[in-house]
């Protein structure tokens, strides 16, 4: 493998195995990144770099120690193994940590590229964004401020552990972020869009970047010119896939992370409304029977795609809420052992210098059986929140809020005028219990999920079909 020194990684594992460890693993990681930053039509900078290094995680005396370095020498390997071993023993835990049982396996997996990212020149990358910017500002809309960042990463990993597992992987990813401000009559409206893909340069064909950004600018202009304030009250709310997706991520994916449920994130990302001996646990009802939310790392070319997690566990879809019932948490080996089950492969780290923790991959509402027209035609008065701007949720993942970016008033099944930033502020239980209809087609949006300390921004998809909520308070 380029960028990785397998010999040093193997040496580190062998050296660790010579100590009184209950478990040890070495994860080597090499990432070639190319990124460009543009603002207001000007290329600020183009940055190209390779980062590679490795980490050692040791379980000894029921504690965990972790150390990493980007110095590829056997002497350095010894140093970090010694530190990780010392740190593991330093924990002096009353409740000893154990990992759920796993068999050893050998695997080599990669994501294919139809158009190889490495073959795309910097000139082409720059021109792609310059052209998009030119097209965007030539629409007769005052897009007063534009900020784009765009990057590719080619990631190789090599994982070995004391149980005999050996896993190699290669994942190319392409990601982009755009933030625009449209100003009309002195009034600004803003929007951001994120794009993400695991695979080759063919991502650009799928994204339809220019089209999407122009559409976004037109939406903002329309909001400024035509949007009316909503009269607050109880009404039906139709959520577009973007809104269904963020709700699935925030109020299903996060509270179903077993490390939060068991308290390991209590000081940062928080806990969960789901906890042992609480009101909500496995098999408890949380939504209506049409609500099924899945987290699936195996969606081809998704931003959150992987075949084996960073503990070497084979990836599979996880049905989190199934037919409105809490069904399965997201686990790593540590949390799975605490609940006496097997890991379902949700352990991920953003780089070699970060521990792998429980993460989502691609979290989305499963499609239902209704046409989009049927969803709308039955709404007498309500709101269609196609996309969102401000959003947040409390740290037990129960009190959430989504503010519409592109939103319309619905009357007798017809879309009427745009609405100025309508708001739904409600609980997880009320949101998912109010859903009575789900459309057939799932769409995905790329996102960077935040968790961990230090923060590990993880590529994920959010997504869903169009969903309809009955009788919720919109303001």
């Amino acid at each position, binding site marked *: 493998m380029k960028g990785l020194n397998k010999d040093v990684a193997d040496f580190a594992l062998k050296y660790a195995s010579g100590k009184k460890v209950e478990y040890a693993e070495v994860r080597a990681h090499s990432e070639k990144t190319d990124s460009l*930053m543009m*603002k*207001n039509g*000007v*290329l*600020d*900078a*183009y*940055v*190209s*770099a*390779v*980062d590679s290094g490795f*980490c050692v995680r040791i379980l000894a005396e029921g*504690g965990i120690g*972790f*150390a*990493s*370095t*980007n*110095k590829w020498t056997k002497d*350095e390997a010894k140093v*970090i193994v010694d*530190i990780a071993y010392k*740190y*593991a023993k*330093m*924990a002096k835990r009353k409740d000893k*940590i154990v990992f759920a049982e796993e068999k050893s396996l050998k695997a080599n997996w990669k994501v294919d590229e139809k158009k190889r990212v490495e073959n795309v020149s910097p*000139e082409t990358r*720059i021109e792609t964004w310059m052209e998009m910017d030119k097209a965007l500002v030539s629409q007769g809309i005052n897009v007063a*401020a534009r*900020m784009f960042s765009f990057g590719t990463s080619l990631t190789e990993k090599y994982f070995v552990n004391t149980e005999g597992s050996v896993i190699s992987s290669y994942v190319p990813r392409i990601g982009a972020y755009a*933030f625009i*401000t449209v100003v009309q009559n002195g009034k600004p*409206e*803003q929007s951001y869009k994120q794009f993400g893909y695991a695979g080759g340069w063919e991502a650009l064909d799928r994204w339809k970047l220019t089209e999407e950004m122009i559409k976004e600018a037109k939406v903002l202009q329309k909001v400024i010119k035509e949007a009316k304030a909503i009269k607050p009250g109880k009404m039906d709310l139709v959520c577009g896939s973007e809104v269904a997706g963020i709700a699935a991520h925030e109020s299903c994916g996060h509270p179903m992370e077993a490390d939060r449920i068991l*308290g*390991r994130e*209590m*000081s*940062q990302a*928080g806990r969960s409304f789901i*906890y042992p001996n*609480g009101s909500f646990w496995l098999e408890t009802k949380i939504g209506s029977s049409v609500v099924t939310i899945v987290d699936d790392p195996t969606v081809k070319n998704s931003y959150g795609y992987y075949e084996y997690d960073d503990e070497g566990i084979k990836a599979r879809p996880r049905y989190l809420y199934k037919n409105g019932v809490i069904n399965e948490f997201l686990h790593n080996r540590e949390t799975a052992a605490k609940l006496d089950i097997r890991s379902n492969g949700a352990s991920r780290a953003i780089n070699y210098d970060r521990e792998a923790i429980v993460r989502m991959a691609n979290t989305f509402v499963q499609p239902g059986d209704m046409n989009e027209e049927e969803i709308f035609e039955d709404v007498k008065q309500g709101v269609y929140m196609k996309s969102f701007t*401000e959003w*947040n*949720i*409390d*740290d037990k993942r129960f*009190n*959430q*809020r989504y503010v519409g970016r592109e939103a319309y008033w619905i009357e007798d099944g017809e879309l009427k005028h745009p609405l100025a*930033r309508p708001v739904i*502020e*409600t609980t997880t239980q*009320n949101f998912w219990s109010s859903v009575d209809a789900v459309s057939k087609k799932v769409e995905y949006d790329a996102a960077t999920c*935040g968790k961990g*300390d230090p*923060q590990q921004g993880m590529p994920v998809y959010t997504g869903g079909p169009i969903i309809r909520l009955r009788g919720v308070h919109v303001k």
Partner: protein
Amino acid sequence: MSELLVRTEEIVKRSKALGADEVIAKTTFGRYRQTRFSNNQIDISVAWNDYVTDVVLAWKKRVVGTQIRNFQNVDQTVKRLFELSKVSKENPMYGGFAKGKFRYHKSKADEALVNLDNPVEYVFDAVEAAKKEAGPDSETGGILLTSLSDICLVSSEGPMGEDHRSAIELSIRAFSQREASGHGVECGSALKGFDAARAGRKAGEIAKQAKDPKAGVEGRYDVIFDPLFGGSLLGMWGSMTSAYSVMIQMSIFVDKLGQRVASDNVTLRDSPAPYSVANRVFDDEGVPAKENVLIRKGLLKTYLHNTSTARIFKTETTGNAGIISPTPWNLEMDSGDMSREELFSEVKHGLYLTNTWYTRFQNYATGDFSTIPRDGIFLIEEGEIKESWKDIRLSDNALKMLNNIIGLSKERQHVHWWSEADPPSLVPYILMKDVRITRPR
């Protein structure tokens, strides 16, 4: 001259020899140690060593960058970088890197931190202190982080210097009940004066007071913000003073230089002072980092600049580079003339909010946003804490809030927590009128 500086300078020389117009190389040798704990036990201790040189090069106003790890493949990497500059695009807004020789304050990493062998004892101190306040059955979690970094910067334009930084920070959250929690932090650049138990005590005290919370009530309130919550607010306001944020309109301060943006008791500075966990002696162009007054008595005095943004705004760099984006280092709000107790006595019917998270904007230019108070949320009646609340959201406007500050305490605390109270700051208790509180339905 240290070996690190010599090798960093060599990268600059080789880049210049290839034909680069301007080059900056900054080498960081960082050693970071973190212990994470939850449920009163240590979950993991982590060490990461980072050996990296950031190289930025300009050729005919084309700006490109890369990283060199542990001084490996220097020739190859620099050549590739220079080739990249040739196919990149001119940045007409590029104003060059800072020129001149500068004298820097001497910096020295704290010896006690360098020699700290077993930091987990501080975790145990904090946990015990929190449990003493919140009760033996209370649960705590958090992190202890120590960082030591040696930084060498060499610019082809003259600046050359070394900085030796150290920092220690502890963050602890205590739960006296499932929905009753408090948060405390302790931060500094040296071990002297670092009191882990103080953070634990504060977390525990708040958690104890927060017991049996009731659902909050929507409305507009006078609010006292604890310094930890204030750290999030300062981070929000401070980041918006970056000229980059202004240029892309992610700021409430667009076109407001010289204008009133806050009530007249507000003075906001950026200062990379020695006490701060973000202490530093120069910015990423090698310009001496210094104190800048951002808002003086309510008037917006300056944006934060690097050389390029300063040129666009026809002013001088403030020593806050970021090659692309100027950034605040350590924000300070000037203290007021009231004690914490006097501040509380001003509130007839209001709230005391101790911490927050998940701040998100619907429009940065207008300042409309919301954030979610967490940990202790208290109703104040006639200056006294009356009851504990939960499940509320602060839904308001960042500019309006700055203008509604009506009182500041004499005492201030240096705070930094995760990515919420970030960048680090020095914050008094803040009394603000007419803050809008909403709740879920």
